[in-house]
């Protein structure tokens, strides 16, 4: 399978007459862009705001991030979401690099939403402070979930995906300057010297713990709760087949942007044919019932065994109960002789003294750790807030609170905040960017 991604670097984004791309400058016709957003009548209010690295801006509640892309054959960029279910990962896609579309609640936040600071101390906690962000700040008429802590955020998230596709389309006819080619030969058709290398699978456990539809990560538009582990081509993951959900505490979340750019897949590609033979991705999931967890682990083990994998990298999107899926999968792979390295974050508490994962097993002897979800973070006020700051305290975000005996509310009168890392937008970067680790103190 061969995927060519034409990369167009974006250095700045401005509003203007015509949505266009010219030498690093993306210009957006706001009115036209908002029409795309408002194709869904559930969107009652919407605006676009630009947030650039270094600006005194705080964005909250952030629900999703997407890299603007367009598939040159005209198929849906995000199959099952912005269009029909058609296969991706092959052919040509164009991408606007260095920027993202953020889905931001104009008022209302939910458990899985997060916060981004574009400058200052808070900027280091999230990857998205480094990007030029088009913030889609919107409200909806989804009254049924207004007072719920868990929200599907369907209208805003889908609108952001449409917007990302609309922006991506801007460069569809432009001449390519930089092209990334992602190609893996079929597993049984590889040369002897590649076959002789240690073969590696990447096992992903995207968030899928809500039994009700609408909250979980999607695979080709299909709720990951309703699937059994399956083999996928890494190009499908990079090319929009996986859509982020609306449930997981935010620092543990993998946004759609993260899937589109998954650093671990990129790194496995870079090693392919040199130090390893990259077999592909086993797309697993996270479950609520023990037998579901065991069944998923069994399938992962079986696929790895059938492929003859020598080694695996295993990553979980989440912590707490998902640790049980992670450890079950780790143990199953090791039992099958597949040498496994796990990637996860930890929940050691504000004082660092809690057990790092809720389930432990001595077979999980190789883990890359990406951060502590419960670290307390205090940040000074920011000049501008995009969205609504009060959401952090009021709406049950996983890292915010309305009141606390010792710490008071998350949001102070002067606009300064105190929160858990839990609500830093995709902060723990378990898909591979994380420059953080955990140490004993």
């Amino acid at each position, binding site marked *: 399978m061969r995927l060519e991604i034409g990369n167009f670097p974006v250095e700045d984004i401005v509003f203007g007459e015509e949505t266009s791309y010219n030498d690093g400058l993306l210009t957006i016709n706001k009115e036209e862009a908002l029409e795309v957003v408002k194709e869904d009548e559930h969107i009652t209010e919407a605006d676009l705001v630009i947030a650039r690295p270094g600006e005194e801006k705080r964005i909250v509640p952030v629900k999703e991030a997407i890299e603007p892309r367009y598939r040159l054959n005209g198929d849906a960029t995000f199959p099952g979401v912005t269009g029909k279910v058609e296969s991706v990962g092959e052919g040509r896609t164009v991408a606007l690099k260095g920027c993202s579309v953020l889905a931001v609640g104009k008022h209302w936040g939910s458990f899985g939403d997060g916060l981004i600071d574009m400058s200052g101390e808070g900027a280091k906690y999230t990857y998205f402070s480094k990007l030029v962000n088009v913030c889609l700040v919107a409200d909806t008429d989804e009254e049924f979930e207004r007072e719920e802590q868990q929200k599907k955020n369907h209208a805003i998230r889908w609108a952001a995906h449409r917007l990302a596709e609309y922006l991506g389309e801007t460069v569809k006819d432009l001449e390519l300057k930089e092209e990334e080619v992602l190609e893996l030969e079929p597993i049984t058709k590889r040369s002897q010297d590649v076959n002789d290398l240690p073969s590696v699978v990447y096992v992903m456990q995207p968030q899928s713990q809500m039994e009700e539809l609408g909250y979980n990560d999607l695979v080709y538009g299909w709720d990951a709760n309703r699937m059994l582990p399956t083999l996928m081509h890494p190009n499908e993951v990079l090319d929009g087949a996986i859509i982020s959900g609306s449930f997981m505490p935010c620092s543990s979340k993998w946004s759609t942007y993260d899937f589109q750019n998954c650093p671990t897949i990129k790194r496995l590609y870079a090693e392919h044919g040199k130090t390893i033979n990259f077999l592909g991705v086993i797309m697993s999931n996270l479950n609520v*019932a023990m037998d579901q967890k065991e069944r998923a682990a069994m399938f992962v083990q079986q696929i790895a065994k059938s492929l003859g994998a020598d080694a695996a990298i295993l990553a979980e999107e989440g912590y707490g109960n998902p*640790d*049980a899926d992670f450890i079950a999968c780790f143990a199953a792979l090791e039992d099958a002789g597949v040498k496994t390295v796990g990637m996860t974050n930890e929940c050691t508490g504000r004082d660092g003294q809690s057990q790092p994962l*809720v*389930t432990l097993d001595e077979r999980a002897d190789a883990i890359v750790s990406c951060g502590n979800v419960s670290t307390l973070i205090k940040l000074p006020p920011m000049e501008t807030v995009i969205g609504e700051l009060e959401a952090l305290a009021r709406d049950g975000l996983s890292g915010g609170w309305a009141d606390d005996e010792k710490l008071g509310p998350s949001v102070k009168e002067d606009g300064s905040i105190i929160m858990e890392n839990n609500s830093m937008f995709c902060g723990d970067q378990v898909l591979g960017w994380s420059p953080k680790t955990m140490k004993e103190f």
Partner: protein
Amino acid sequence: MANLIPVAETVGANRMVPTISIPYPLGDPESSEDEQWKLRYHRVGVALEALETAIDEQTVFEV
């Protein structure tokens, strides 16, 4: 009584009775009220038996 027996084991629980799911440990809304009641009554009964049983290591009681 826990669905995630490995978690219970890891934190050191000694007498464990499996339940059916995280959001509804003792009664699957998909099944009939009667079935849910039977299941709940049965599992709580197993928990009571567990309380009466002498053990010398962490034990998961069969349901």
